[in-house]
């Protein structure tokens, strides 16, 4: 087929004036993002993370719980690509399945804390001053508190579980979302279109949901990309200490923990358990920073 045979796209009659300009700005930014090597590397690593976790059973070479005692503590071989652990379980497979725990915690933890943080932040920014101050005090207290010590105290009371890890992740992530949502809401509160909306008799929930939220959520989504490494690290760290996912379930933290106990016999487990953690962290950080620099350069300040 000749290139000249392809019909030129007809100009869209609806997309005129301001809409056309907004569209071209968005397109320009997308091209800028696609040309950003750091962002592309990040996107690649993030896709790898999702794919390896979702399709873990497809990529796996063994069953994560099957033991192969004669070949225990082996280094990388043709059969066991990343060696085996003290029970002869395949480390490569266990690390793949560990990605599923990381993905689960990241997906649930980040989305729940994003929603709660968004609502609390808008309430703090839009509500009365005393409520704002109270919420700010609580956010600051939580944000600054050492996560591990909070987790240790909670585990002492409730016992270790994945649910508790999720709860800790959510509680400690809410403040950063809420603070960001609050700052944007405060800036919007006095703008003319909100005043106009109010004079038309719109209720506060309607203003928040229909007019404030769409303007606030963009930066929060970018922040959520940068929050994933934090969340994944908390899960791995707590599981490493034996406070999160319980054996025999595979998680990057438990693989690292079991590997650390036998570190003098074989180095491969702590290497194999750590690499995906580093790659995931790097990927989301690169992606988040590229998105932030292109779509919301203001966010950069103060971080």
């Amino acid at each position, binding site marked *: 087929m000749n290139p000249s045979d392809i019909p030129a796209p007809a100009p869209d009659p609806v997309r005129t004036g301001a809409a056309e300009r907004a569209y071209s700005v968005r397109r320009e930014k997308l091209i800028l993002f696609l040309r950003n090597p750091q962002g592309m590397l990040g996107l690649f690593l993030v896709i790898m993370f999702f794919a390896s976790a979702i399709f873990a059973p497809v990529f796996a070479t063994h069953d994560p719980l099957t033991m192969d005692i004669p070949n225990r503590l082996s280094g990388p071989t043709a059969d066991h690509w990343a060696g085996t652990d003290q029970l002869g379980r395949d480390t490569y497979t266990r690390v793949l399945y560990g990605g599923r725990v990381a993905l689960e915690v990241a997906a649930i933890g980040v989305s729940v804390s994003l929603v709660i943080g968004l609502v609390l932040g808008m309430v703090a920014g839009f509500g009365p001053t005393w409520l704002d101050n109270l919420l700010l*005090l609580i956010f600051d*207290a939580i*944000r*600054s*508190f*050492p*996560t*591990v*010590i909070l987790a*240790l*105290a909670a*585990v*002492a*009371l409730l016992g270790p579980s994945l649910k508790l890890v999720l709860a800790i992740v959510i509680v400690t992530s809410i403040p950063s979302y809420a603070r960001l949502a609050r700052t944007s809401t405060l800036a919007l509160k006095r703008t003319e279109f909100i005043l106009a909306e109010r004079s038309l008799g719109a209720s506060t929930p309607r203003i928040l949901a229909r007019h404030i939220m769409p303007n606030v959520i963009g930066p929060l989504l970018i922040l959520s990309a940068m929050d994933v*490494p934090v969340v994944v*690290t908390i899960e*791995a*760290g707590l599981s*490493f*200490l034996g406070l999160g996912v319980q054996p025999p379930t595979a998680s990057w933290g438990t693989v*690292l923990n079991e*590997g*650390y106990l036998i*570190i*003098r016999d074989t*180095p491969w487990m*702590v*290497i194999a358990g*750590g690499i995906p*953690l*580093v790659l995931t*962290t*790097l990927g989301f*950080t*690169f992606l988040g*920073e590229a998105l932030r620099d292109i779509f919301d350069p203001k966010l*950069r*300040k*103060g*971080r």
Partner: protein
Amino acid sequence: MWWYLLKRLALSVVIILLAVAALFLMLHSIPGDPVSIALGPRATPEVQAAYAAKMHLDKPLYYQFLIFAGNVLQGDLGSDVFSNRSVALTLSEQLPYTIALAVAALGWAALVGIPLGCLSAIRPNSWLDRITGIISVGTIAVPSFLVSIWAILLFSITLRWLPVIGAGEEGDILSQLRHLILPAFAVGLGWVGYLARMVRASMLEVMGENYIRSARAFGLRPRTIVFRYALKVAILPTITLIGVGFGGLLSGTVFAEIIFSRPGVGKIIYDMVLARNFPVVQGAVLVTIALYVVVTLIADLMVSWLDPRVRESL
């Protein structure tokens, strides 16, 4: 200035009081009746009532809380369930190890990170700046407990340069320092990146100010301008960052203490959680919060002392 100091102190007190209240409520939500646990199942109701009266367990909750808060304010954190030793005494032995680790970690990170940030701000987008950027993101991306494990693998097991376990012989400074190197390296590594990025960002901002332009017009060398004049102002957000990030630093020391089996507050919390020795956990958590509050207070006061604009705004 005094008004600011007063407000800031009040905030610290509120945070500590909230923490004490939260701990008290948490301890009360543990299932189990303390009287029957302390006396065993065969105690008669009379003995139980006498014990409850002696320990004020028959009083309402707010009364018990006031007694608890009063004891804490007097420095009495209760006693160890197993050894009956004073918790305050145990913690005062452990705290120096944690503080030494935190200071060493932050110290080496500042010594490396702040100059790196300055150098990359002198020539933005130069090769040095790019390398610093990559190093910063790289060090931030590796969690500190992973750094600890990999450092042990490389320096202790493969190369056999440094010891792994413990804090060194008591009284032997050299041995203690050798034991401090790896944990401090692991805890501080991420901070190198944080500090370098923070200093670079605020330095670039300061470099646009008028007084820097004047200095440049006088013909001072860029290096002199950056290190002697701009750094004084550019360091302020970094001090705030250290204050806010101190909680994260303490999380790092907890992991390092556990992995390297070093004595310290984090290690004792971990061990006592596993042993379900609640008075020690509670005391150690309180001490950590107090430590955190004091450090943020110092950081805030330092910034407001160095920068008059901050104290006006609060």
